[in-house]
C-alpha cells in the first residue's frame, strides 16, 4: 500500500524488505513501471497523444513487454488474484495501444493512392480478365437477343423512358445524344451518384460471397442492356455517336463496374477453390484484398458522376467525347498496370 505512493526510493526498498512474500517483493519491485505504463496508456485512451513526451512514447513498447512478462511470471508464481487481474487489464490496454492501427486515415489514403490501390487491382489477376470476358459476353448476348426479337429490349432495359425504344426515329435518338447543354448538370450528377450503377458495383462485389455466380449474372444482365442500346442506335446509323456519348464517362464507369465485378468474382473463386485454407479463411483473405479495390471503385464512381453530370453536357462533339473517354481509359490502365512504385505494397 505504502509503496504505491513512492517512487523507486528508499521507502520502497524498505517496503520490499518488509514484505513477507516473495511474490509481493516481485510486485513492489515492478510496480512503478506498471504505473508509468498505466499513465501512458490512459493518455493514449483519452486521445492526449500530444501531451505525451517523446520518451514516454518510445518507452511504451518496452514497458508493454515488461508488463506482459510480469503477467507471465505472476501467473506462475503469485496467487494474488487482484494483481493478476490488474496485470491482465493493463497488458490488454497496452496491447491495444501497441498493436493498434499504425497509421491514420490520411497516411493510409496517401499510401493507397500512391500505389496501394493499383497493387490491389493487380492482385485480382485473372479475375479481371474473367470479368472483362463476362462483360463483353453480356454485351454480345444483349445485342443478339434484341436483334433476334426486339421485344427483348423492354426486358433488358429497366429504365422507363419513351424515347429510346425500338422503332424510334433517327432524329429522336439523335436528340438524346446531343444538344442538351441546358440540362442541369447538378441534378444529373447527384442522380448518378445515388443511382443504379453505384449500386450495381456494390452488389457485384457483395454477391461475390454467394460463390461469385450472382456477380457474373449481374454483370451479364447489366451489360446486356448496353448491348441492346448499341443495337438500337446501330439500327439508325448512330453507333459512333452513341459510343462517344457513352465513352466520355463510360470508360471510367464501366471500368469501375469491371473492377467491382472482378472483386466479387475474386471472392467467389476463393470460396469455390480455397486451396489449403478453410473456406471462411480464404473468403476473408480475398475479401480484404477486394475491399481495397472497392474503396477505389467508390472514388471512380464519383469521378464518373462528375464526367457524366458536367463533361457530357459541356462537350457536344463526338470526336472530343471519344478523346476524353479514350484518355481516361488510357490513364486508368496506366495507373493500374504500369504505375508500380517500389515502396508500395498491399497487405491484408
Amino acid at each position, binding site marked *: *500500500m505504502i509503496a*504505491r505512493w513512492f517512487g523507486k526510493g528508499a521507502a520502497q526498498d524498505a*517496503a520490499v524488505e*518488509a*514484505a*513477507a*512474500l516473495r*511474490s509481493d517483493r516481485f*510486485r*513492489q519491485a515492478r510496480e512503478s513501471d506498471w504505473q508509468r505504463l498505466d499513465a501512458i496508456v490512459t493518455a*493514449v*485512451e483519452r*486521445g492526449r497523444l500530444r501531451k505525451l513526451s517523446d520518451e514516454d512514447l518510445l518507452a511504451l513498447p518496452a514497458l508493454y*513487454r515488461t508488463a*506482459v512478462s510480469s*503477467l507471465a511470471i505472476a501467473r*506462475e*508464481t503469485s*496467487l*494474488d*488474484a*487482484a*494483481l493478476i*487481474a*490488474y496485470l*491482465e*487489464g493493463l*497488458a*490488454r*490496454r497496452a*496491447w*491495444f495501444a501497441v*498493436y*493498434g*492501427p*499504425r497509421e*491514420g*486515415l490520411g497516411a493510409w489514403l496517401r499510401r493507397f493512392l500512391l500505389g496501394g490501390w493499383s497493387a490491389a487491382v493487380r492482385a485480382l489477376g485473372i479475375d479481371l480478365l474473367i470479368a472483362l470476358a463476362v462483360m463483353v459476353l453480356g454485351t454480345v448476348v444483349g445485342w443478339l437477343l434484341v436483334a433476334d426479337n426486339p421485344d427483348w429490349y423492354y426486358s433488358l432495359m429497366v429504365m*422507363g423512358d419513351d424515347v429510346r425504344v425500338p422503332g424510334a426515329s433517327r432524329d429522336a435518338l439523335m436528340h438524346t445524344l446531343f444538344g442538351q447543354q441546358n440540362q*442541369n448538370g*447538378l441534378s444529373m*450528377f*447527384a442522380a448518378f*451518384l*445515388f*443511382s443504379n450503377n453505384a*449500386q450495381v458495383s*456494390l452488389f457485384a*462485389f*457483395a454477391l461475390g*460471397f454467394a460463390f461469385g455466380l450472382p456477380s457474373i449474372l449481374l454483370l451479364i444482365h447489366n451489360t446486356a442492356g448496353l448491348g441492346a442500346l448499341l443495337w438500337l442506335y446501330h439500327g439508325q446509323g448512330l453507333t459512333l455517336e452513341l459510343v462517344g456519348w457513352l465513352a466520355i464517362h463510360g470508360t471510367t464507369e464501366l471500368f469501375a463496374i469491371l473492377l467491382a465485378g472482378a472483386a466479387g468474382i475474386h471472392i467467389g473463386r476463393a470460396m469455390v477453390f480455397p486451396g489449403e485454407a478453410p473456406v471462411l479463411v480464404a*473468403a476473408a483473405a480475398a*475479401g*480484404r484484398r477486394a*475491399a*481495397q479495390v472497392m*474503396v477505389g471503385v467508390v472514388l471512380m464512381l*464519383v469521378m464518373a458522376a462528375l464526367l457524366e453530370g458536367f463533361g457530357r453536357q459541356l462537350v457536344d462533339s463526338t470526336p472530343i467525347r471519344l478523346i476524353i473517354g479514350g484518355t481516361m481509359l488510357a490513364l486508368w490502365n496506366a495507373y493500374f498496370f504500369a504505375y508500380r512504385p517500389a515502396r508500395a505494397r498491399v*497487405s*491484408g
Partner: protein
Amino acid sequence: MARQPRLRRRPSPDQRKRQVVTPEGVPLPFTIGARGARVLALVLDQVLIVASMAGLSYILFSLARAVNIKTGAGGDAIGQVLVVVWIISMFLFRHIWFLYFELGPRGATPGKRVLGLRVAARDGGRLTTEAVVARNLLRDIELTLPLIFIGSALAQNEDTTFAGWAGAAWFLIFALFPFCNRDALRAGDVVAGTWVVEAGRDRLKAALSTGAGAQGHSALTQTRYTFGEAELSVYGEYELQVLERVLRENREDALVDVAQTICAKIGWNSGNGDERAFLEAYYTQLRARLERGMRFGQRKADKHS
C-alpha cells in the same frame, strides 16, 4: 477456455470470455462485446453522423448565403462547384466517420467509446488498416444496401412488395449473422479478421499480504498468529481466492462467518472482534505456503485435491 455448449439462451459475461495469444506468446483474456451494446453503439454513431452532417451543411449554406452565392439549380458556376463538393462529402461522410475514428489511436468510434467497446484483431496481432477498411466497407453492404434497394424501388415506382421483401430478407440475413456465431461477429468482422471486445480498465488494488495484520500481529489483542503446516494444508487456491475476495469486500458478517468456518476446520479460536487480523494472517501464510508449492511445481487447486 472451455468450449461452451452451442445452444444457450443468454450469454453471461463468462461465456463471452476469450483467450488471445499475443505475439509475445502470453495469453490475454478478452471479453466479447455484448450484442446489445454494439447495436446501441451503432445507433449512437448513426445519430451523431446525421447530426454532424446536418450541422456541417447548415454551416456551409450559411457561409454560402453570407458571401451571396446562388446555390440552387441553375445557379452560377461557383455555386454549382460548391454543391458538388457538398454532395461528394455527404456521400463519403459515413465512410470517413468510421474510418477516421477506428484508425485513430483510440480504435473506436464515439458510439463504441461511450459503450466501452473497441475493435481488435482476432489473431492477437496488429490491427491493420486494411482490416478496418474491409470491416467498414462491408457495413455498407449489410446495412445501407438493403435500405437503398427498398428506397430506390419506392422512388421508381417499381414492384415495391418484391423489393421490400428482398430488401428485408437481405437485411435480416446480415442483422442475424452476429447471433449465429460464438464471437458475435458480423459479416464485416469475419472478412476483416476482427472482433469487437470490451475495453474496460481497473485500478491496481493494494496488496493484502503486506499490512501489519498480514505479519501475524494483532493490533487488538497484541498476539501473534502463526499457523502450522497441518493447519495450512487443509485449503487450496480456490479457498485462498474466496478469502481474498472476502477480505477485499470487508463486510463484517462475512468476515465473522469465514473466520468461524476456518477456526472450526483447523480447531482454533480467533476470539471475538479480531477476525480481520486473524484472516489476514491466515491469508498471508496460506498464500506463502501455496506459492512455495508453486515454485516447486506442486499446485493445490482446492481443498479436495
